[in-house]
C-alpha cells in the first residue's frame, strides 16, 4: 500500500510538472516590394527514412519511407544594385551584380508520397500530424544540403547570360558582367 501511494505521488508530480515556456513569435503578414530575378530552378528529390523503435515501453516498432520533391529557385536580388554599379562608356557597359542567392523553396504536396509504412506490435499508424513533422525534418535536411549542389553557380551563369542579352538588345556592343564574391569566400579572404 505504501509503495503504491509512493508511486501514485511520483506520477502525480511527473504529470503536474510544468512544461518549458515556449517563446512566442508573432508573424506579420505584409506586402513587400521585391526585385528577385530567378535564373535557375532545381528539382530535388529525397527519400525520408524513419525508424521509430526507440521507446522501451512500446511493444513493436514503426518504420516509414516517404519520398518528396522540392523546387528551389536561385538568382539575383536586383534591389541590391546601386546606381554606381552600372558604368557606361559609349557602347561599353560594365555591371556589378550581387552574388546569386537562394530565392525560393517549395514542396509541392502532390509530389509527396508515402512509399512504405510498416507498423507492428501494438503500435498505431503514423498520424498526419506525425507525417507532417517527419516531412519538416526532410525539408530541413534538403535545405542543409542545398549549397552542396551547383545551384548558385548555375544561377550565376544564367544571370550573366540574361544581363548580356538585355544590354545587347539595348544596343551595347561590349558587356562586362562582374559578380560580388560569394559570402563564404568573403569570410575566408578576410
Amino acid at each position, binding site marked *: 500500500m505504501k509503495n503504491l501511494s509512493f508511486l501514485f505521488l511520483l506520477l502525480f508530480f511527473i504529470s503536474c510538472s510544468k512544461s518549458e515556456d515556449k517563446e512566442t513569435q508573432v508573424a506579420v503578414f505584409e506586402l*513587400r516590394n521585391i526585385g528577385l530575378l530567378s535564373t535557375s530552378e532545381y528539382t530535388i528529390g529525397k527519400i525520408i527514412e524513419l525508424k521509430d523503435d526507440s521507446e522501451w515501453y512500446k511493444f513493436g516498432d514503426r518504420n516509414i519511407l516517404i519520398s518528396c520533391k522540392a523546387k528551389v529557385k536561385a538568382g539575383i536580388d536586383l534591389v541590391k544594385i546601386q546606381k554606381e554599379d552600372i558604368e557606361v562608356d559609349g557602347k561599353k557597359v560594365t555591371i556589378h551584380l550581387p552574388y546569386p542567392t537562394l530565392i525560393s523553396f517549395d514542396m509541392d504536396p502532390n509530389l509527396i508520397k508515402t512509399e512504405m509504412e510498416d507498423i507492428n506490435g501494438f503500435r498505431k499508424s503514423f498520424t498526419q500530424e506525425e507525417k507532417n513533422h517527419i516531412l519538416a525534418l526532410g525539408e530541413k535536411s534538403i535545405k542543409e544540403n542545398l549549397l552542396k549542389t551547383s545551384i548558385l553557380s548555375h544561377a550565376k551563369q544564367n544571370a550573366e547570360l540574361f544581363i548580356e542579352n538585355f544590354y545587347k538588345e539595348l544596343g551595347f556592343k561590349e558587356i562586362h558582367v562582374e559578380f560580388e564574391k560569394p559570402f563564404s569566400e568573403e569570410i575566408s579572404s578576410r
Partner: protein
Amino acid sequence: MLNLKNRSQRKLALVKQVVMLLVLITTILLLMRWCKKSEKESRFEIENSPIKVELIRSIAQLATISYKDEVVVDSLEYYSSANEQILGNISKLVDIDNIKHGLKSSNIKRRLTLIVKGEINIGFNLKDKKFKIQETDSLIKICIPKPIILDVLSTPSTTRVFQENGSWKDYEITVLKNKARDKMRRNVEQLQLKTKAKENLERFLRPLIKKNKKVIFEVR
C-alpha cells in the same frame, strides 16, 4: 461483540481494497497520460539519406511583389445515422488518441484542420516571347508579358495540423493542402496586386537602362 469487531474489520478491508483500486486506476491513467505526452514530445530522427538533383531548368523570372498569407482549411465528415454515431463514439472511447472526441458523443465522424502559412511571389516570366526591347532614335519601348503568380510557397514546416479527429489518408491531406494554396491564390487576386507588380518592374528596370532616352513599358 466479536461479530461487531469482525464486521468493522471487514468494512475496513473493503475500504482498503476500494482505495487500492482507486490508486491503481489513477496510476494507470496517469501512466497512460505520461506515455502519451512523452510520445508527443519525443523527437523523431530521420536517417541521413542523400538528396538527388532530378531536374535543372534555366529560367528568367522577375518577382516584384511578395505577399505572405495564412489560411485555415478544414475537412469534415458527419456520421450518416444515429446507429453509426453510437458505434463510432464507442470505438473512439477505446482509442486513447481519440477518446476526447468520443466523450461528448459528437455527430462528427472525422475532422482535419490545417493552418497553412505561405508566400506568394508575383512577377513576370521574362523567357516569354512577349518580352522584347525595341529601340528607336528617341525612345526605348520594353514589351513585357502580363504579370502572373510565379510561386505559391508552402512547406511542411509552415503547415500545422490544428486538429486531427479520426484517421486520414495521404491523398486527403494533399487535397486539403492544395485547397490552402488555391485559397492563397484567390486572396492575391482579390488584392489586385498585378498592377502594383508592373509598377515595381518599371522601378527596377529603369535604373538598369542608362540611356538618355524616354523609356516606355507596354504590357502585352
